[in-house]
C-alpha cells in the first residue's frame, strides 16, 4: 500500500495483481490464438476465451502512479514519484545519487 492511496491507486493495484494472477493463462491463449499453424477454429476459440478475461487482467491497464500523491502524469518510473514529489524528495536528499544541477 503506497503512502497515499485514492481510488485510482487502489484500482491500479488491483490491475497489477490481476495481471500477475492471470498472466500464464492469458499467455497460453495468446499463443494458441496467434499461432498460424493451428486450425482457424481453434484459434478463434482461443481468441473468444481471451475476450472473457476481465479489464484488470491486461498489462496495458496498469499505469505507473506516484507513490506519494497518486498522481498519474509526469511520473519518474525509477523513483515511482511524480515530477513535483521527485523535486521535493531530491532537494530534501531522500533520493540517493540525485543532485540538483545548474549550468
Amino acid at each position, binding site marked *: *500500500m*503506497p*503512502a497515499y492511496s485514492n481510488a485510482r*491507486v487502489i484500482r491500479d*493495484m488491483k490491475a*497489477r*495483481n490481476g*495481471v*500477475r*494472477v492471470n*498472466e*500464464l493463462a492469458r*499467455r497460453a491463449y*495468446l*499463443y*494458441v*490464438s*496467434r*499461432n*498460424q*499453424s493451428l486450425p482457424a477454429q481453434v484459434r478463434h476459440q482461443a481468441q473468444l476465451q481471451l475476450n472473457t478475461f476481465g479489464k484488470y487482467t491486461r*498489462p496495458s491497464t*496498469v499505469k*505507473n502512479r506516484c*507513490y506519494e500523491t497518486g498522481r498519474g502524469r509526469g511520473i519518474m518510473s525509477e523513483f*515511482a514519484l511524480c515530477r513535483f514529489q521527485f523535486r521535493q524528495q531530491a532537494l530534501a536528499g531522500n533520493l540517493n545519487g540525485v543532485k540538483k544541477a545548474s549550468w
Partner: protein
Amino acid sequence: MGNVRQSTLEALTRLRCSIFQTTYNPTRIRTGAKYLRARLRGPSMVKYYPPALNISAIARQYPALGIVDEKEQQRFQDIIDRKKRGKGAPKKLKKNEDGKRAQKKR
C-alpha cells in the same frame, strides 16, 4: 549464382538453422512463440508500490503494545466535534420508516 538450385538453397537454410539452433520456418508462418518466450511481467508489476508502514494495522494486530494511530484519533475527535455543532451525518433510516424523499414521490 543464378544456377543454384532451389532445393540446394533450401537445404542450405535448413543446415544453417540446425547450426545456429533456430527454427526452420521457410514460409515465415507466425508460431506465437514470442508469447511463450517473453518474460512474465506480473511479478515486477506487483512490486511497483513498495509496502508502506500501516500503523493502524499494527495496532489492530498487537493491541498489547498500546499504539495509538494519531490521525485516526483526530478523525474521531473531529466527528464528535461536528456532532456537537449539529453538523453530524443524518441518522440512518430503519427498514419500515419512510424518508422525506419517499414521501415526496407519492
